[in-house]
């Protein structure tokens, strides 16, 4: 009898130990899984931020490179061209007796140099949007559109929402400007449209850009699926990703497409170190 009682106790204690083990295992799995997930989430957050940083740097160095090229073009080629023009003028004066043929070559050389100077000026200005830096988004967009509308049957309208748009950070301004450039270029290149409307809106939290055309329209989803996305749409997305912005494409009523951009004006991003944006105030980079 005594033995059986002891045996029962042994079995009971063994069972209790097993049950404790079971509960411990279950609790451990629950908590461990939870912690691992929290860690994983943190890690992916860090990775995402890191990706954003990389993208930011890449775009940043792209802008810097453009600026460098513009400076070199302006300072080296531009100066040399001016000197060439001067020499040609002097030569023109020095050559007193010449026949008609020589006269013609002279004129041709002069006008070629003149034209090249104009081209270089245009290219440098396109590489670095100086108007944007000096006078802000509204002026820069006006200028861009004005130049495009010249000698084009296309009508492009621009509505800056409020009279006086406040200046926001250069990073955001530049992003909005480049995105606007790409969207308008796309409309001209792909949409077959006759009219483009650009609308800029801003309050103290968001900056909104809308580019609408009356062309053939497109579906961004099918374009993405068929891998037709060029650098343009991708560039827009990466610029927006850095600034936490969003883009939304839709079909407008008259058949064309409308792109709506929304970028939060985040003081944190703006407080990033401001880049000196004066292309022609030269700081020599010694390599």
């Amino acid at each position, binding site marked *: 009898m005594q033995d*059986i009682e002891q*045996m*029962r106790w042994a*079995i*009971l204690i*063994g*069972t209790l130990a*097993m*049950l404790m*083990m*079971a*509960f411990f*295992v*279950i609790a451990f*799995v*629950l908590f*461990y*899984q*939870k912690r*691992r*997930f929290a860690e*994983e989430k943190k890690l992916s957050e860090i990775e995402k931020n890191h990706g954003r940083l990389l993208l930011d740097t890449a775009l940043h160095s792209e802008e810097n490179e453009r600026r460098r090229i513009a400076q070199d073009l302006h300072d080296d080629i531009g100066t040399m061209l001016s000197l060439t023009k001067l020499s040609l003028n002097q030569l023109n004066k020095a050559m007193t007796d010449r026949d008609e043929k020589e006269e013609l070559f002279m004129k041709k050389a002069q006008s070629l140099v003149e034209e090249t100077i104009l081209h270089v000026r245009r290219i440098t200005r396109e590489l670095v949007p100086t108007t944007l830096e000096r006078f802000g988004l509204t002026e820069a967009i006006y200028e861009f559109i004005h130049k495009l509308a010249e000698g084009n049957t296309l009508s492009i309208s621009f509505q800056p929402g409020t009279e006086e748009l406040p200046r926001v950070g250069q990073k955001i301004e530049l992003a909005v400007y480049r995105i606007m450039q790409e969207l308008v270029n796309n409309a001209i290149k792909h949409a077959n449209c006759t009219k483009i409307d650009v609308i800029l809106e801003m309050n103290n939290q968001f900056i909104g850009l809308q580019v609408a055309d009356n062309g053939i329209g497109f579906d961004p989803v099918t374009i993405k699926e068929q891998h037709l996305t060029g650098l343009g749409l991708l560039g827009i997305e990466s610029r927006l990703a850095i600034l936490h912005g969003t883009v939304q494409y839709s079909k407008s009523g008259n058949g064309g497409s409308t792109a709506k951009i929304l970028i939060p004006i985040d003081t944190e991003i703006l407080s990033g170190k401001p880049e000196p944006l004066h292309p022609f105030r030269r700081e020599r980079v010694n390599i």
Partner: protein
Amino acid sequence: MLDKYLLFFTHDILANSTVIVTLLPIFIIIYRKAYVDPTFRLLLIYLIIKLVLDVMMFHFATFRINNLMLYNISVVVRYTLLSGMFLYKFENPLLKKIIIPLSIAFIIFSSWDIWISNPNIAHINEHRIVKYATTLEALLMILWTLIYFYELIRSLKIPSLLTFPFFWVCSGLLVYYSSLIFISPALNYSMRWETMFAIGYLDRVLYMFDIIIMLLFSLGTWVFSARFYARH
């Protein structure tokens, strides 16, 4: 007749309510359509067979017929079907491969166990519970659940275990077999016509965990539906 059943039922309510509790997960699986998942389909099949066997055992017990043969059969069915659930859940291909051969081996082993535990197999009143098969079953099932938990932690696929149905099923299995592993070897000696070893209050533990595992199965099925419908 009915009053005989009723009398037998009330004479040990805890033991006999294990029969009724089985209905709960069955109903929830059907009601929430959890059987679309092959794992839960297998669970449903097991629960229905268990219910049938339990009712038969209850009937035999009421009329004082030895029902331990049915118990032995239920052990074999229980292991085969419950371990079969892991066939759909394991990710390791090797583990997937050994589950079915092990089930077959287990069936052979338990048949042998029934044979040696019952020297007088033709005599129904002399039937006894298997000696080793339940212990082996418990060991294997605990092993499977622990391996599954390990895979679960390693793969990090399920964000919230509390709403993951099979987690509850596994927890039920782990708790149930943990309670069974030491008590079951004693059953062979206690459940005899001339009892050699009365396990006394220990059988309460068995009945309690019989109910607890059914409740955990029900809980798992309940969250299954919530998750299933949330995704569609």
